[in-house]
């Protein structure tokens, strides 16, 4: 628990509780937090507006992460933000697995939007299954 705790963020109440849990844990262990959100890939479209939509989604996601990060920095936690693209559960899990500094992945049990769809059914068992790193599911 010396290094990095990765938190899956999607703006849902569950993700916020996960972020609060991770923030407390980071404060107690001295770990750094990495707030991560995953934007589901858009279908490839050629009509005008596709690129603008993508950019606007990215801006909104970054803003969401920054707001959460600012709240945590205010409490003295070291925080970084990361926006990824792809299928939410697998992307989060792969990212946690491939980043050697990540000790723990923390996610809300019930997300919304992309996460909810990707993890429909049993959010918990799916993410806990695809990720090889230890996963905390926060109700």
């Amino acid at each position, binding site marked *: 628990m010396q290094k990095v705790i990765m938190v899956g963020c999607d703006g849902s109440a569950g993700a916020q509780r996960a972020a609060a849990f991770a923030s407390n*844990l980071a404060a*107690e262990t001295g770990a750094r937090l990495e707030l991560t959100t995953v934007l589901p890939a858009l279908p490839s479209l050629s009509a005008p507006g596709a690129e603008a939509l993508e950019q606007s989604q990215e801006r909104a996601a970054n803003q969401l992460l920054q707001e959460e990060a600012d709240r945590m920095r205010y409490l003295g936690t070291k925080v970084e933000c990361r926006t990824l693209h792809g299928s939410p559960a697998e992307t989060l899990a792969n990212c946690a697995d491939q980043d050697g500094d990540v000790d723990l992945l923390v996610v809300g049990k019930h997300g919304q939007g992309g996460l909810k769809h990707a993890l429909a059914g049993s959010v*918990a068992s799916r993410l*806990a*299954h695809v990720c090889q790193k*230890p*996963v*905390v599911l926060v109700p």
Partner: protein
Amino acid sequence: MQLILAAIDASQPAHRAAALAARLAAKTGAKLLLVNVVEPLWIPSDRAIDVSGLVEELQQASRSLVRGTAARLEQPGLPIEPLSLTGSPAIAIVDLADARGADLVVLGSTGSGAVARALLGSVADRVLRTCTRPVLVVH
């Protein structure tokens, strides 16, 4: 964090879960509650068999598992309480977490049964779905 509950059996994931739980407890100053649950034997009602010896043997094995694990994880400043219970594992774990107000429940993804790794073990899956506290799953 005040109390971390690690639910263990004799499996490798449980072994890793207990080690991680001990590291977390040591870092956060929490107490570690190490629990193993013995499932009651199923005895067909048409047979009059004296199973008291078998039950005693199972409970004895459970007690030595938690005590042995506690001894292995022992370190200065880390209070560990080994506990052996009898009941339905997932229900007993969730009830115990609630009764003691555990801040985190830690458990291995699969039990000692030779079930394929394709799915979470049934105990982990059920604890994830029913526990209203943060649950950490370790592969």
